[in-house]
């Protein structure tokens, strides 16, 4: 069969998939495009789901309407259809129910699924957060006086805690690790950020493993490994997400044995010809950061989607994808921003103003600036991101901060970052 007629098939209709479609058209691709989405909705924005959506915003924020996708972008939309398999020899994506969608080029952007807690099956009042339906259920459960246990002190857990506090709920965060956010920002910055919870009156229990969810039909609390019981009307589990790649097992698309991400090359090609990956699923060698990475953030999904489409459809214009990762998070009215990587040799807090809840932390490997974390310092982060982009030294970053600083700078507080892999 003439493969090119099958066109581009994008599996996953969230941000990365949408950006892939838009990028394909912008680059001049006029062939057929099929966009497959497991959710019934047109693409919508996920970051608000743990923030405003839980508090005061009644509707999800659409990224694009179905009409726009169909008419302006000329996309065949298959929403509410989960991909069930991929056959590289036949060049088809198989959907739940057996329907087959042929492709000339395919981009996998199926994102990630929230990890659940073992033994929570069937117990009412236990939630995870990934989709708008999940968020609606959590919002309905959050009322003044509700006792909430958030499992996991990561960014999603912290944002949910913040939202719950602002609607008048009482929140306890239970975290298995001895410090929060170690994987994302390292121990030093994670510990510093945890103070925001204290200031907001949220109890954080660290190094605490949950051994039992209490309750019969409905959750009434959690039991920790030390026997302590934390009562709860609602339990929200925010212990990370796993790449939604199970449907690819046996397809020949190589998956990372540790986290299930799709192993790509620098051009976002998977191990299978004509199949690319983008968004939370994609693991690729990020030359600018000198390491293989997989990102779970808005900016990364948008950029990966756009690049994967051009690389898939226009081989003569294909370029290696590299980026300085960037994400932000909002807790209790404070803004946290992060650029680069925490997988560095050293981390230090370079400027800090406790009274105004501000700091800048820098990560470095050798003399190179590897990452930056800021709290309520929005003017700094993109200047630092640019320094990371051009492989600037830690010294240059310190000089930048000294030039622009508005708050007194105490002696740097040095700490250990994570060892380089």
């Amino acid at each position, binding site marked *: 069969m003439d493969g090119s007629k099958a066109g581009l098939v994008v599996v996953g209709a969230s941000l990365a998939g949408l950006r892939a479609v838009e990028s394909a058209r912008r680059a001049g691709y006029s062939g057929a495009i099929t966009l497959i989405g497991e959710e019934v909705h047109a693409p919508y924005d996920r970051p608000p789901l743990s923030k405003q959506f839980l508090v005061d915003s009644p509707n999800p924020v659409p990224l694009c309407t179905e009409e726009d996708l169909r008419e302006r972008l000329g996309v065949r939309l298959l929403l509410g259809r989960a991909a069930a398999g991929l056959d590289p020899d036949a060049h088809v994506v198989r959907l739940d129910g057996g329907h087959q969608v042929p492709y000339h080029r395919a981009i996998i952007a199926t994102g990630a699924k929230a990890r659940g807690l073992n033994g929570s099956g069937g117990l009412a009042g236990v939630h995870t957060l990934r989709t708008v339906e999940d968020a609606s259920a959590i919002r309905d459960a959050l009322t003044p006086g509700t006792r909430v246990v958030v499992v996991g002190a990561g960014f999603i857990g912290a944002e949910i805690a913040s939202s719950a506090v602002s609607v008048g709920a009482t929140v306890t965060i239970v975290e298995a690790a001895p410090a929060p956010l170690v994987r994302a920002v390292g121990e030093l910055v994670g510990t510093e950020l945890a103070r925001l919870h204290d200031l907001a009156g949220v109890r954080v229990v660290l190094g605490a493993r949950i051994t039992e969810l209490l309750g019969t039909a409905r959750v009434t609390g959690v039991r920790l490994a030390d026997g302590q019981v934390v009562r709860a009307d609602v339990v929200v589990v925010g212990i990370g997400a796993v790449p939604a790649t199970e449907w690819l097992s046996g397809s020949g698309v190589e998956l990372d044995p540790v986290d299930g991400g799709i192993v790509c090359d620098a051009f976002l090609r998977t191990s299978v010809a004509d199949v690319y990956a983008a968004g939370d699923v994609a693991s690729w060698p990020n030359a600018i950061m000198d390491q293989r990475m997989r990102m779970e953030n808005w*900016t990364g999904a*948008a950029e990966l989607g756009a690049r994967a489409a051009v690389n898939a459809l226009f081989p003569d214009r294909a370029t290696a994808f590299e980026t300085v990762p960037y994400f*932000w998070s909002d807790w209790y009215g404070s803004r946290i921003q992060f650029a680069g990587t925490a997988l560095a040799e050293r981390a230090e807090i370079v400027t800090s103003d406790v009274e105004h809840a501000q700091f800048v932390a820098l990560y470095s490997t050798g003399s190179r600036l590897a990452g930056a974390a800021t709290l309520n310092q929005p003017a700094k982060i993109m200047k630092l991101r*640019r320094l990371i982009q051009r492989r600037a030294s830690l010294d240059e970053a310190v000089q930048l901060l000294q030039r622009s600083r508005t708050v007194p700078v105490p002696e740097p507080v040095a700490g250990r970052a994570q060892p380089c892999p």
Partner: protein
Amino acid sequence: MEIHVDRARCTGIGMCESVTADYFEVLDDGTLVLHRVDVPEHDIALIEDAVRACPAAALSLESGHEV
């Protein structure tokens, strides 16, 4: 063409500044300032990148009034 900022949407995330610091800068209080508003032909693609990069969908590129 002119850059427009929807101030009700902008929260100072800073992606625009990351795309081009010649046009955009986020201040210490999170306010976005535009160093330039008018976009000459040769910068339109760049500013379109900034518009697309905004996670808050706060930026747009619109026809300016005729001078």
